[in-house]
């Protein structure tokens, strides 16, 4: 259970990190808190020649409200969010998600940028940020680009990151006062990766919703035109109108053939809807 040998560099700043990544032509891995990469290194599932440790880069440790959104640097940890060391524009939604990721000893080191880059479909932020409508800034030596979270995870452990590119920051839009939030997950054991995630952001006043069915072993299902899930209309009575058959059909369409699995996902999503309406 020891990693294969690797070289190790601790760059001085982000541009030095990007230069190291670019020079490595794909044989390097970025490490931040190491809570996803560490186990994979120990299990020798990943054997990079070079590890570039960005955990000390202060430029990735910022958290500031800019206009109508919160900008979080990639190195902000789950515990930073859980404890409220970062501002919260989501009226507690992010804090509650963060508090239930893995275990406290993991949350003290695990980062949002690392979790997203790892692109595990069962990771909480992949689903939660998608429901909140967050975007990412990705940066390489040539410059930066922005991307919606739901476009970022392209498959199990597969992200849209190009070679030489890293997640720089997450942009979380402020949650409107009239919106409701619900988040539920099913884990075989507390703290383990989820087998099903439901994330729901419903704004009955604006007749809009973002619904995410996550932890389905591939890119989460993100529904932004969600009226059909609520009988064609999103209003104050959305809890009563939630249509499990439509959710089941979405899962079948996404390739979940096992009816029992679909049932678990639908049930967890329903819990999230009930929590939002509570």
């Amino acid at each position, binding site marked *: 259970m020891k990693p294969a040998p690797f070289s*190790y560099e601790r760059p001085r700043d982000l541009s030095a990190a990007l230069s190291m990544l670019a020079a490595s032509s794909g044989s390097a891995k970025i490490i931040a808190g190491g809570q996803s990469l560490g*186990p994979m290194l*120990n299990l020798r599932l990943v054997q990079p020649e070079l590890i570039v440790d960005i955990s*000390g880069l202060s430029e990735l440790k910022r958290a500031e409200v800019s206009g109508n959104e919160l900008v979080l640097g990639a*190195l902000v940890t789950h515990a930073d969010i859980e*404890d409220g*060391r970062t501002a919260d524009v989501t009226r507690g939604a992010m804090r509650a998600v963060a508090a239930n990721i893995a*275990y406290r000893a*993991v949350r*003290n080191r695990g980062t949002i940028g690392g979790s997203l880059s790892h692109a595990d479909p069962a990771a909480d932020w992949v689903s939660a940020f998608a429901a909140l409508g967050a975007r990412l800034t990705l940066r390489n030596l040539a410059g930066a680009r922005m991307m919606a979270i739901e476009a970022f995870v392209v498959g199990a452990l597969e992200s849209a990151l190009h070679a030489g590119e890293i997640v720089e920051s997450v942009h979380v839009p402020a949650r409107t006062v009239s919106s409701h939030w619900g988040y539920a997950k099913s884990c075989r054991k507390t703290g383990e990766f989820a087998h099903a995630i439901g994330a729901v952001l419903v704004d009955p006043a604006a007749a809009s919703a973002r619904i995410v069915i996550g932890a389905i072993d591939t890119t989460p299902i993100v529904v932004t035109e969600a009226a059909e899930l609520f009988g064609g209309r999103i209003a104050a009575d959305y809890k009563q109108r939630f249509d499990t058959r439509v959710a089941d059909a979405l899962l079948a369409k996404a390739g979940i053939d096992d009816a029992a699995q679909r049932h678990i996902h639908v049930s967890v999503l329903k819990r999230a809807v009930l929590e939002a309406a509570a």
Partner: protein
Amino acid sequence: MTTIALHVNRRAVELSAEPRTSLADFVRDRLDLTGTHLGCEHGVCGACTVLLDGVPARSCITYAVACEGADVTTIEGLDEDEVTTELRAAFTREHALQCGYCTPGMLVAARDLVLRLPDADERRIRVGLSGNLCRCTGYVGIVRAVQSVIEARRARNIAPQADAGRTHLGPAGSGRATSTRDEPRRATQASAPASESAAPGRIPDFTPATVLDQRFTLPHPPAKVFAMFDDIAAIAACLPGVSLTAPPKPERVVGLIRVRLGPIAAAFEGAARVERDPATLSGRIVGIGTDQRSHSATQGEIRYRLVPLEGGAATAVELSIGYTLTGMLAQFGRPGLVRDLARRLIAEFAGNLDRHMSGASPEQAAELSFWSIASDVLRARLARMFGRVFTGKGGAE
């Protein structure tokens, strides 16, 4: 191999290790701090949980090299910790362990819950401990133990601290390292000359685990004594067991201290730096040393202040000696015994100083030979100490 400098249980450590060495292997194999246990080695079982910058972290999936400059506290470093002391008593009372393999990680996680949880809610405690697996107890005793400590502390009006006092963003343990590349480091030095903070061989400040105050007088004026204290080679010659291995400079004095304690012989190789303040006739010596044979290490600090006596004809030397000892030898180091040792050492030092300043050469002492003339009291203490060690009750208590 990469040189890694960090603090473990309040003492500065500088050792080389492969980048792939986990923090757990580093403290176990290099520092003999085997209280940190390894179970799953991929972050699931919690046996390896230690404090990193004061908060729990998995030492099996945290690489030592990534902890450059960080503060690591293992279970050995929590011997005197108030919350952990209460938890140990509660674990004993509630039968919260059987084989004990999970217990070091369990105590670190439980300590965090005691500090952070507002009340002794069973569900929150169980969720909070879900990252620490125990195969013996069924958790019932562990949960009761944690509940009882939280209840007792809240009843004593000790408030919870939900964020465990952490104020920085980013991974615990990160942020105090410099970069590894030569080019950027040179560039940094050019623009900011004060960037030597993590340069290899630097002797860091530390918080001593034990502090002893001592005082002796010399029949010489303070100014003369203070000038004498500036002659590092002469001072070293007056210190029993000390020999220098290179010409001393105030910023770095390299040498060896031999100590013999009954059957235990140690030779601490290390370095010190010397600071002086002529305005207050005071100064400070800070040093670190390791004994290869016993894998033990010590960190020490001597602060001195010279006070005029008898209208300036004589000098009182006020010493404050702080030290931290870790590794195998720390199991034998009882504060009472070390206080005895320090008193004898200082008496010999004072005698040598006086002889040197009066023109005589100090008595050479290759080792702390006074052990050979140890009093009956001291012998009795040693016998009791080894009695405890060999009956297995000396280590952790």
